[in-house]
């Protein structure tokens, strides 16, 4: 199970408390509501409503999302990994997201608050979110998308030695991108007349992503916050470089936490360029320390779930515009 934050409201009761008997008219209403979804979505919804078994939920959710995606993009959903992004990859805007939510609410007989939706960015976010709602589990910390301004503001590492252009961080993983510009100072000498990104720097970039995870994705002990000044590299194992990376290449970095107990955090990491494997690190270990959390003023926009781990981060405007705030120009 992903680590979790407590939802802002304490009303997240398991559903259904006791399954209601599923009447024939319910089935007819369900059929009508899902008439433009795949038969399997309908079947799964029937099963869920009859048994309350949450394992039918992903099929319903995917079926509902599929119904609102333009036909030529639907193939992406067929073998979707959970990182498939709703807006960027599937063309779902905030209004369509609301249509999806209304139909899911109707079909699964649940209520979803706007605040809870604001950070659902990927198919995986949606599936996990609905699953937690159904099971009455605390909601997972949503994926945060961090642009360079945000990264620069929270990281103890700074240019010219910062090798992340953008990143997304959840409680279970962090992903980042870095484009090799060719202007990096060390490329002048590595190698002579042949600029190649040093493998040690690529490992450094993975380490930096792990630092960002600790600051933005890791859930500290209550009342504590990870101290950015106390995170250091301590070791790595199973590192292999598979590909030379040169100016113009875009490194896609990802790390996943394996064990995480103060003062030691262990990750596995990899770097790809496009679909090609560039670097694998079976294990990267950092040590870190906590500081006392400073009481933060509650943001005026009411985004209480963003538990601002770092003092600097709180002063940065939310980088990701809330996907569900519709511009009302009325």
């Amino acid at each position, binding site marked *: 199970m992903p680590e979790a934050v407590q939802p802002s409201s304490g009303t997240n009761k398991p559903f259904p408390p006791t399954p209601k008997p599923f009447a024939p008219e319910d089935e007819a209403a369900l059929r009508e509501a899902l008439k433009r979804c795949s038969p399997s979505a309908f079947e799964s919804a029937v099963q869920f409503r009859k048994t309350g078994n949450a394992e039918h939920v992903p099929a319903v959710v995917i079926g509902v999302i599929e119904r609102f995606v*333009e036909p030529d993009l639907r193939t992406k959903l067929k073998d979707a990994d959970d990182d498939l992004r709703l807006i960027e990859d599937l063309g779902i805007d905030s209004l369509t997201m609301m*249509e999806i939510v*209304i139909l899911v609410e109707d079909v699964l007989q649940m*209520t979803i608050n706007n605040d809870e939706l604001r950070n659902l960015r990927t198919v995986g976010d949606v599936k996990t979110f609905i699953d937690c709602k159904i099971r009455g589990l605390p909601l997972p910390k949503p994926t945060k998308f961090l642009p360079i301004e945000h990264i620069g503001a929270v990281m103890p590492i700074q240019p010219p030695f910062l090798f992340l252009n953008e990143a997304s961080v959840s409680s279970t993983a962090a992903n980042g991108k870095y484009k090799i510009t060719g202007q990096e100072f060390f490329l002048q000498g590595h190698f002579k007349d042949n600029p190649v990104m040093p493998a040690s720097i690529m490992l450094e970039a993975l380490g930096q992503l792990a630092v960002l995870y600790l600051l933005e994705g890791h859930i500290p002990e209550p009342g504590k916050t990870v101290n950015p000044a106390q995170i250091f590299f301590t070791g790595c194992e199973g590192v292999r470089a598979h590909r030379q990376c040169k100016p113009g290449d875009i490194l896609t970095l990802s790390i996943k936490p394996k064990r995480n107990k103060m003062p030691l955090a262990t990750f596995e990491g990899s770097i790809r360029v496009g679909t090609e494997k560039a670097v694998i690190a079976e294990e990267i270990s950092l040590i870190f320390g906590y500081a006392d959390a400073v009481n933060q003023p509650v943001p005026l926009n009411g985004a209480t779930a963003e538990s601002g781990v770092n003092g600097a981060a709180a002063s940065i405007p939310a980088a990701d515009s809330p996907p569900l705030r*519709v511009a009302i120009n*009325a």
Partner: protein
Amino acid sequence: MCSTNRMPRVFITGLGFVTSIGNDAATVTRNLRELRHGFELYPPFQKPDIPCKVVGTVKDFNTDSPDPEDWTFPLRYKIKRELLRSMAPNGLFAHCAMLQAVEDARLADPDISHPLTGLYAASGGSPFLTHWHHERLLKVGVMRCSPLGIVAAIVGTLNFNLVAAFKIRGASCGFSSACASSAHALGFAFDDIALGRQQRMFVIGAEDGNVDAILPFAGMRTLSLQTDPNIASRPFDAARDGFVGAGGATVVVLESEDEVARRGVKPYAELLGWGQASDGYNVAISHPEGSGSTAAMLNALRASRVEPEQVDYVNAHATSTLIGDVSEARSLRAVFKNAATRPAVSSTKALTGHGLSLAGAQETGFCALALREGFMPGNAHLTKVDPECEGIHILRATENTPPTIVIKNSSGFGGANVALVLKRVA
């Protein structure tokens, strides 16, 4: 820019139609010439408690469901769900008419989505969807209501949808003066081009034409109660008993003379100018002497530098109501004082019914067809002219005489009157 300091001339360069008498310019032209109407017994009205029976229906479209994904329309129009979901039926009609007009005017995407291309639209919104969404709100609660219910239903739905769908970047606005709405939109679009603010304007009128849009007029006792579609709408006839409701859409493309020259297109007609005036009389009843309509025509003629004697044809507003037709006949006698040179007059609502907000744009489109094709449509279904309407030259049949100068009249609730002056392009 214009070569001299005078105001740029304005031309009609494209048309699109979804009307009760045809869903393309060729069909509409044929039905105008041959005086074939678009009326039928409207199935939802065939109930004992509904007094009116006949409607000018849009064919080949089915928008009976409140869910746009249930709608059917001709296959040649491809519309994504993303666009369809926020439309009212009048939005669908207008979108299809827009596609026709864009093709007809031979406009490319950069011309359409351009800072100097604007869009003015007029519809009464969608009482049908307002009703449906509100009922749903009361039944299932506001949080289960479609997030797009508002933009699909309220007045302005037409411009919201079309501006977004066609990526319009110039002026955009909706007009609401009831049955004069789209004529007003044409007038102000003319001004925008004449003043150099825009070089091209799409002007759209559209209405749902369904139960919720039409039936409330029965409460005003303004609808014809005729059960025979062949005689239900008969403007200026002594036996007329009210108007016949209709839906659909018309798009008129206006362009500056420089754009016409640059693109090398042949316009339908020139829009010389326009005028408006109000009755200052009653919220719903037209002035008995047609004072506002008279003033609107005189203003339009003056702005267009045209003498009344030069006018060949007037496409009347006349909706087939008892009071309105008489008011307009009186105003026509007042404007065209010389009985010997009075222009030919007809109301094409005898064929189409009354499209409310749609009427002005639709009938301006008809005038553009008449000017290009060289005919004047007759006033159908006229058996005996109402004595109060005598003295004007009502065409009993279509005349294949090319008119040179044409006036289009429109009047709406509150006593709003608009007159547009059009000229044949040599």
